[in-house]
Structures are given as C-alpha cells and as structure tokens.
C-alpha cells in the first residue's frame, strides 16, 4: 500500500456531516491500520482464532467441489488465479479455495467459513420504528444479517436514531458481536433515508471514522453514496483482505438520470481509494433500481463484473433491482459464489409474510478472507484517465471522490 500525505484532504473530499468524517483520510487510515494490527495481534495471542479455524478446516477439506451456481451460461469465467500462491487461513498450501467449496445450504448461501467472508446488500424497505417495534420482523431481519460478515443496508427511515442500535441488540442476542456504521439522513423531501453498514466485529474491522459520503455538490444523486473501508481479521502472518464498499440507493423515478453517472461515482471512489489508501478493491453495491441490461456505461467500465445477472432480487421475484459490482480482475478475492437470499424460503413463509420484512431480498457474494497477491501493486484498470480531473466540470481537485455527469445525461 502506498500513502499520499495530503493535508486538509477531508475538506476537499466529502460533505462533512456529523462526526463520522475525520479531518484527514490518510490520517484516519493510519489510525485504522494501527487499530487493526493491535486487534489482530491480540486475536493471534489468545489462540482462539486458530483453534476455531482448525476444527472447521477439517470439515472444509472433505467437502465436494462445486462451481459457481450464480453465473449464467456465457458469463465471464470466475476462476481466481492467485489462490494457490497464498493459502487462506486453514487451507493446505496449493489447494484452490474454489475447488474445496463447502456444502451449500438449502438457501444457496455458503455457511460461514474461516477462509471466506460473505458480503451482502439489503434494502430493508422503510426500516424504522415500526419494523423494529415488531419483534417477529426484527428477529427475522437480525437472522438474515447473522448470515453475513458485512451487510450494506439501504432505506433506514427513522427520526429516532436508536433503531439501528436496537437492531444490533437483536443481532447480537445470541452472542454475536456486530457493530454498525450509520450515514447521514439524506433526501430531498421531508422523508429522509440513511445508509448503514452492519459488520461482524469478530471477523471484520472498521468504524465510523473509516467512512465518508461521496461529494455531491453538483446534486446528481438523490441519496449520496456512503463509502466505508473494511479489513478482515486474520491470524498473524496472513494478509487481511481490505476493501471499500459504496452503498447506493437510486431514486426509482430518476434512474434515467442517476444511472448514467454511476460509472463516474465508481471510478472517482476507486481513484480516491487507490490514491489515499492504496485500496484496489472497491465494490459498488445496493439498490440500483435497474437490471444489468440498462446499466449503460456502468456496465462498460473496463473489467467490471456484477454478481447478479438475471435473477430477480425483489421479494415478489419479478424484478432485478439490486446488484454488486467490482473490478473482476483486481478483486480476485471473489470466489465466484454469489446470489440472492430468498426470504420466504429462508423462513418458510409466504411472499406476503416476507413482504413484511422488505420488498427486496438480500443479495450476497463470497470473498476470500485474505488479500490475494495479484491485486496488490497494480493501479486499478479502468480508473479515471489522466484527463479525468481536467474534464471534471465541478472544479474538483484530483483524487477526490467526486463524480461528473459526463456526456451521458440525456
């Protein structure tokens, strides 16, 4: 990783809202790194992590191989090349992770594994006091989140800022240790929405100070994306997988205006993450209100890969709204497994009952828990070209996660 020391970066990079924006992202990165190292050392010292890894590894190695159940015929091949170079925790050196897949659950979501993490996106339709006030609904939402290591949430709608802490109580009720990052209230009407990340602190490190809102001075998006940085917790000697997530919920009425700028959002954040933190794994995820066939320029970003191809992601199973996109070459931590978690199947309930949870099903994807070697030391292909800053009509300095409307707004 390389670090670009720039004073006052924050003033330039983001709309400062609340206390969760720090006055310097490179400084905050150093702090996060220091904290991570301390946490990892502590985890390695107490030996619990390795013990757990060993017991699960035995079961893992006996599992049958499986392919990617998500990829449609003709989809780009997802065979990570670098796995044999760097064994994941508990893995026999030389063994390919992708050929030792765990048995799939009836839901298609792989069980939690010491070698991989599961990242999900979930639009919990109008999540507020009402939903958290119904224990059955809150418990189901918690059960869903418990399936994953990191969940990017859309549509937190509540004046009462205790709804997410209340949800965390449900999630942690059985001893889990999840935490959250909550974004600012966003929206053009009196009804506001918040993005949120919920992550399992026993496997993932992050914090409020590792997040920022993308610059939206030009007001191109109704709900400005929330970016957060994460890093896996791994035993000593392993290189943690670090990644940045962009949580987005487009305005369904303005998809035609917002989708055409989405590729610049992705590229601007990638450029910023690379230049300030050496981060090459940037994943844009959320409710795009759009199927891949209308991605336009977002779908043409070099090496772009999206995990949901033709599956419906809404609870009624009629539309593909949600997705997860990243560089298919650089993010070679992706194991090839991804999909949609059908809530009605998970809980054995009718679609009408599932709709009480949300009108969206969660989507998920699996990644290795360690950073893969080929991803380091390489600038993100498809990152903004040298002319990017000069072409930026909003006068932003280089390396800022601002985006432009290019020539794609009709």
């Amino acid at each position: 990783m390389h670090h670009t020391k720039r004073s006052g970066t924050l003033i330039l990079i983001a709309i400062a809202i609340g206390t969760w924006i720090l006055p310097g992202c490179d400084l905050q990165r150093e702090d996060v790194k220091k904290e991570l190292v301390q946490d990892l050392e502590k985890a390695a010292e107490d030996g619990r992590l390795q013990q757990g890894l060993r017991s699960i590894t035995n079961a893992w190695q006996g599992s049958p191989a499986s392919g990617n159940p998500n990829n449609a015929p003709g989809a780009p091949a997802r065979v990570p090349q670098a796995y044999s170079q760097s064994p994941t925790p508990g893995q026999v050196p030389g063994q390919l992770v992708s050929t030792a897949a765990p048995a799939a659950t009836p839901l298609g979501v792989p069980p939690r594994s010491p070698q991989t993490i599961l990242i999900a996106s979930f639009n919990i339709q109008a999540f507020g006091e009402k939903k958290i006030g119904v224990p059955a609904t809150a418990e189901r939402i918690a059960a869903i989140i418990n399936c994953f290591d990191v969940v990017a949430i859309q549509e937190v709608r509540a004046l009462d800022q205790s709804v997410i802490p209340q949800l965390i109580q449900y999630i942690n009720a059985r001893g889990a240790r999840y935490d959250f990052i909550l974004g600012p209230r966003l929206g053009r009407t009196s009804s506001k929405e918040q993005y949120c990340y919920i992550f399992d602190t026993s496997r993932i490190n992050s914090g409020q100070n590792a997040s920022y809102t993308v610059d939206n001075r030009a007001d191109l998006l109704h709900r400005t994306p929330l970016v957060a940085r994460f890093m896996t917790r791994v035993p000593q000697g392993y290189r943690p997988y670090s990644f940045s997530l962009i949580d987005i919920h487009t305005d369904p009425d303005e998809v035609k205006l917002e989708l055409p700028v989405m590729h610049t959002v992705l590229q601007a954040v990638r450029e910023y993450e690379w230049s300030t933190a050496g981060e090459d794994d940037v994943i844009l995820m959320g409710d795009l209100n759009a199927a891949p066939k209308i991605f336009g320029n977002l779908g043409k970003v070099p090496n772009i890969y999206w995990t949901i191809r033709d599956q419906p992601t809404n609870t009624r199973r009629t539309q593909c709204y949600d997705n997860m996109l990243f560089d298919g070459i650089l993010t070679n931590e992706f194991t090839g497994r991804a999909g949609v978690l059908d809530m009605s199947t998970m809980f054995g309930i009718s679609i009408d009952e599932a709709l009480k949870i949300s009108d969206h099903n969660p989507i998920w994807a699996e990644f290795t828990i360690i950073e893969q070697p080929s991803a380091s030391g390489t600038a993100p292909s498809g990152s903004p070209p040298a002319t990017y800053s000069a072409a930026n009509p909003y006068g932003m300095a280089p390396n800022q996660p601002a985006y432009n409307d290019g020539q794609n707004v009709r």
Partner: protein
Amino acid sequence: MRRTKIRDRSARPPQPYLKVHTMPSCDSETLEKCVQDPEYASAHWEVLIEGVASSDESILEPATEALENCGVLNSTALPKLKALLESNSRAGLGSQKLYWLCTLAGRFGKQASGLQGLVTEIATDRSLGLSARERAAWCLTEFGTLESQYAEALKRSAADAPDRLKRLMELAMGNAAIA
C-alpha cells in the same frame, strides 16, 4: 295513540348541504396495505398525498414509501391530478404534496403532457420549495414534449436557477426542440 311515522330515507333526494367529501383516512391499516401492495397504493394515492404532508413520522414515512413504489396511476386519476395542480388549489398544498403530485404526473409520461402548463408554473414559481420545483422540472423531462411558450418560461427561469434545477430545466427544454 299517536303513531310514529316512519320515513323512508332512501327515497329522499340528495341534499347538497349534507354532502361531505369523504377522503379515506391515513389510518395505519390503510398505510400498511399501501406499503405492501403497490396496486392498493395506486388506488389510494390521494390518501398518500395527504400523508406526505404529515409531521407524524408514522404517517409520513409509509406514505412516502408507498408513493415511491406505487408506479403509474390509472389514467382515471389524471383529471384529479390536474385539479390539484391548478393554481386555485395549489396554494394550500405545500411543497411536499406538490413534489409527489409532480412525481405522479411525470410517471404518466407523454400521456400527461396536457399538464405541462401547470407543471411549468410550479417549476418556475420561486415562492415554492426547491424540491417541488426540481421535481416539476423532472416531470417536464418525462413528458417528452414541451410547447414553445413553456420552453420560453423555463429558459427565463433557468437563468438564475440553482444548478440542479437549471440542469433539469435544460433537459426539459430539449424536449421543446424534439416537439
């Protein structure tokens, strides 16, 4: 013995002064149904429009959510939309309601292009909230056509409009060229 005369009420002619406009109420049951069933929400859009102006979060949030998801209304709703957007009734509506009325109008696309005069008035009315004006301008972009006098009005207003509003107005003016 005095006999009580039973009157047949059903036979009485309707009396105008007794007429009450019955708007379904924003009760939680209706709102809940609207959130879960877009078709139901579409049929109860007037209730939802009332709901978005509420300061009560338990009404505002589900009403907003339901309007976001209810899709295109039945075309029979157009005259009512027009009546609400007309200046006489518009005064008391407020920005929140206007925002959503313009959203619903815009979803009709070309079918609602007859409302372009009314919507242009909203887009160019500086006394209204910016979000309502922006949504009105967005609505004009959805109509796919714009008569020249409205394009002129937009052009005048766009000159000193905030960035986003200006951008949307310019997009709408593009429709005038197409028309």
